[in-house]
């Protein structure tokens, strides 16, 4: 469970949101909505400790995350709005790299299964630069399974995905929620997730 | 009691209160020092009247280095204790350091022309002071070339600390370089003893420069704090 107390965010000279309080519970997907520029990405980056809030604190396991940052990092998977896969490597090499980097215990067979689930099994030795943007996004989302973390922070995960893939990812998220995982995501596309709550940033807009 | 040394608000008040005193002290000490140096102290029997340049040159050189030392101290405070005043101080003081360095170099070469016959020699001291000046310029550029002001301040503070490690090494290496490539006869500036009649005005001038330095700091830092307030208000 993650508690945000009174966080405010400032980018440049604009105050984006002010005194935001919310609670993110295990087993429930928290969907952050709001119009463009309402600070969805900033809020997710604050939760992933990639941005310092101007004010306020985030509490996790009864403690401020800034006092327990290493433990907190080891719980997180953060998927940014940009793809971090390397263009010059093949799909398999990218996944292998993530597996080694995150000290994951996933076997190579599962890679194939994962890829066939999202229709990428024919592209396993293809360079990432030859994939379409939706395929790149799907490759990025395999990190959810590879990293084996408890808390998922997803920034626009469905960007450029077709309806079929969206439902598969929604299914994956639902499965993770059943195991008492935590999911925080921002999305414009309605998703079929069983357990969900909304945080509407438009209501908290300053000015 | 010493909180005005690291608290922007208290520094502002202290600087405003002491403004007039520091200004008047600097002016009086300057007048006394210059009169003493130019009129009442004797000419050197070898160097003649040109020795008088020393009274500006030496305090400027000391201050050029002292400024960097101060910046290092505030850099450590800023980065390790998260004292924002350190960033403000470094930003405000770097141009002052550059001015003193330039003063030192220019008076040095004015002195060098009649003594050595050239404006510039690649003497170890001259070269390392020039590099010190370059460091000040880089710090100023770094402060101004980032979109995010706080980022620029942090990066330039890191560079200040890097320089404080590196400048002694550079000084040492340039000394080494100089002794390898040139006969040591050129560094005449290091005279073993100094006549008391020349030393007294030098001390007065040094104190006068220090007070002038204080005055400049209080002006620049206050200006910087004001700019900061303006940015925060927007």
């Amino acid at each position, binding site marked *: 469970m993650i508690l945000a107390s009174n966080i405010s965010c400032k980018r440049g000279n604009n105050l984006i949101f002010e005194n935001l309080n919310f609670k993110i519970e295990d087993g429930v997907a928290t969907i952050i909505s709001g119009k463009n520029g309402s600070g969805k990405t900033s809020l997710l980056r604050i939760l992933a400790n990639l941005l310092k809030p101007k004010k306020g604190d985030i509490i996790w396991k009864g403690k401020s995350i800034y006092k327990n940052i290493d433990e907190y990092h080891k719980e997180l998977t953060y998927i940014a709005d940009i793809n971090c896969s390397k263009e*010059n490597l093949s799909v398999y090499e990218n996944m292998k*790299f993530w597996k080694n*980097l995150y000290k994951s215990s996933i076997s190579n067979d599962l890679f194939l299964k994962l890829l066939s689930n999202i229709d990428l099994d024919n592209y396993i030795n293809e360079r990432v630069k030859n994939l379409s943007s939706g395929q790149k996004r799907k490759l990025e989302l395999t990190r959810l399974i590879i990293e084996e973390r408890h808390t998922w922070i997803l920034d626009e995960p469905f960007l450029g995905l077709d309806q079929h893939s969206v439902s598969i990812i929604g299914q994956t998220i639902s499965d993770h929620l059943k195991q008492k995982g935590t999911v925080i995501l921002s999305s414009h596309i309605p998703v079929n997730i069983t357990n969900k709550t909304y945080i509407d940033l438009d209501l908290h807009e300053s000015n | 009691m010493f909180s005005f040394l690291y608290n922007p608000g208290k520094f502002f008040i202290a600087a405003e209160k002491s403004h007039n005193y520091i200004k008047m002290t600097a002016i009086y000490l300057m007048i006394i020092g210059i009169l003493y140096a130019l009129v009442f102290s004797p000419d050197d029997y070898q160097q003649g009247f040109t020795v008088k340049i020393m009274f500006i040159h030496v305090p400027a050189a000391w201050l050029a280095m002292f400024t960097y030392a101060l910046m290092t101290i505030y850099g450590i405070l800023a980065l390790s204790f998260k004292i924002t005043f350190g960033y403000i101080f470094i930003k405000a003081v770097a141009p002052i350091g550059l001015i003193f360095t330039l003063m030192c170099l220019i008076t040095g070469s004015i002195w060098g022309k009649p003594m050595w016959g050239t404006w510039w020699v690649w003497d170890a001291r001259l070269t390392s002071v020039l590099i010190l000046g370059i460091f000040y310029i880089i710090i100023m550029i*770094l402060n101004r070339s980032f979109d995010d002001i706080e980022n620029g301040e942090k990066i330039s503070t890191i560079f200040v600390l*890097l320089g404080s490690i590196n400048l002694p090494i550079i000084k040492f*290496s340039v000394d*080494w370089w100089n002794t390898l490539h040139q006969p040591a006869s050129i560094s005449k500036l290091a005279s073993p003893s100094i006549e008391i009649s020349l030393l007294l005005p030098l001390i007065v001038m040094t104190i006068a420069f220090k007070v002038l330095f204080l005055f400049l700091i209080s002006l620049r830092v206050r200006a910087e704090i004001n700019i900061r307030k303006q940015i925060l208000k927007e």
Partner: protein
Amino acid sequence: MSQINKNLFIFFKSILSISFRDIKIQFRNMSYIYSIMIFFIMIILIFIFAIGPDEEQLKVYLIPILWSILILCSCISINNLLKDDYLDGNFGIYQFTGISFELIAISKIFTSWILYQLPILILMPFIAFIIEINETKIFHLIITIAIGSPILTVFTLISSAMMLTNSKNLILGSIIMIPLCIPVIIFSIGAITNDQELFTAQINILLSIFFASLAIGPWVISGCIKIALKN
């Protein structure tokens, strides 16, 4: 005990995977490495044309020039070293792996040295062959470059990390780096051009700068990366 060893093994594997990936990406597209090598040779040519074919003069000037070009070659790769990883969010995901940025900085130093300095070091004997200096000097030149180029790599990475959030003033990286390199070039040139006794002394100083920069460098680099990440 074996459990600890296994954990250590996995940990190193996870760090080394970053290095191996960087090397792999560059090796897929060797043109950048070739370009640096060709750039190096081209500038030597330019200097030879500028000095003239007089052999005596060439013998005096070429070693200092080789070292200056080495610094220039390090400068041109400043904006390539860390910027890719910063822009596509890879530093973001390194943060969640539990590997500290100091270790990542060390792995970056390692890969950058292999990718951008080692080719020049390999090129060196051939260049020395062309310019015909005597054998001990070639030997000394290669030793100083072998010790000096890691120092240059550390400095390029420091300035590269400082320039992460700066996209408009690309020359600033070189401006930061060059003053830091002054001691390196003085002692390496000194070691080559002076006699044998001074050689060991200057190599010792160079080695001490090498170890000092390896100790301080990762720390500074990781600090700059963290500042850039929290932006």
